[in-house]
């Protein structure tokens, strides 16, 4: 979530936005706090410079493939049973969550994918203490696609959560009709089980 656009803003709010834990020690000169506004070490800063700032976390997926008779998956599944992510975890409200899924899924028949059915999943595991990310903890994702990135807003996602503790998870899904025809082409050629693809989470 972005910091407020005006009014009172606290160091603790800034610290949490930067990925810190509420109520823990922080200073205005910490590298992660300065990074939100692009300031160098030791320069003069005022609190109103953090108005409307928002952190963005990114991860890189080394893609894998998971192919079944009628379904194909490309990217990261189940925290690394297929593919891998770097970093493996991201921070939500001060809690570190393992990235469960970041993949394109499509229907297939006879070994031939139907890219027009492509959907995109993003999922996070809960923590061992059962900390669960809010449905709307981010505003959108920028996902790599051939020729650039595709921005997919959280507000259009279908959200499903189940389980508890470290094996519980929440996932956000965008269906094929949440993408344009060209986006489906670009998404499919990027998320094809080879190479790496980046995902940026806009908060």
């Amino acid at each position: 979530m972005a910091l407020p656009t005006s009014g009172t803003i606290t160091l603790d709010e800034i610290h949490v936005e930067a990925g810190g834990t509420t109520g823990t020690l922080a200073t205005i000169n910490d590298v992660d706090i300065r990074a939100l506004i692009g300031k160098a070490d030791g320069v003069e800063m005022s609190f109103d410079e953090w108005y409307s700032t928002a952190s963005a976390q990114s991860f890189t997926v080394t893609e894998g493939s998971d192919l079944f008779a009628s379904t194909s998956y490309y990217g990261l599944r189940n925290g690394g049973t297929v593919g891998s992510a770097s970093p493996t975890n991201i921070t939500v409200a001060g809690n570190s969550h393992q990235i469960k899924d970041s993949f394109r899924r499509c229907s297939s028949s006879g070994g031939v994918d139907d890219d027009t059915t492509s959907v995109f999943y993003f999922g996070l595991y809960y923590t061992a203490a059962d900390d669960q990310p809010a449905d709307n903890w981010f505003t959108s994702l920028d996902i790599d696609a051939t020729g650039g990135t595709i921005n997919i807003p959280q507000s259009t996602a279908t959200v499903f959560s189940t389980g508890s503790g470290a094996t519980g998870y929440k996932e956000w899904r965008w269906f094929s009709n949440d993408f344009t025809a060209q986006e489906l082409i670009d998404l499919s050629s990027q998320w094809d089980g080879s190479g790496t693809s980046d995902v940026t989470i806009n908060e």
Partner: protein
Amino acid sequence: MAITLTYDTPVTGQDRLSGTVTFDTGTGEFSCPIIHNAGTMDLPATEARMTLHIQESTDPETNS
């Protein structure tokens, strides 16, 4: 797989549907945009979309 969604009837202007779900191997929660057709809420289509998501999430290898 039997999937049952439970939710409060949405009011006019509501843009998302949220509630709880039970399925063969567990329970969970869901939230999804409400699909509109001709300006009115299409709850069967909304439920079908959400159910598909849950089905594919909980049994991804067997779904087509």
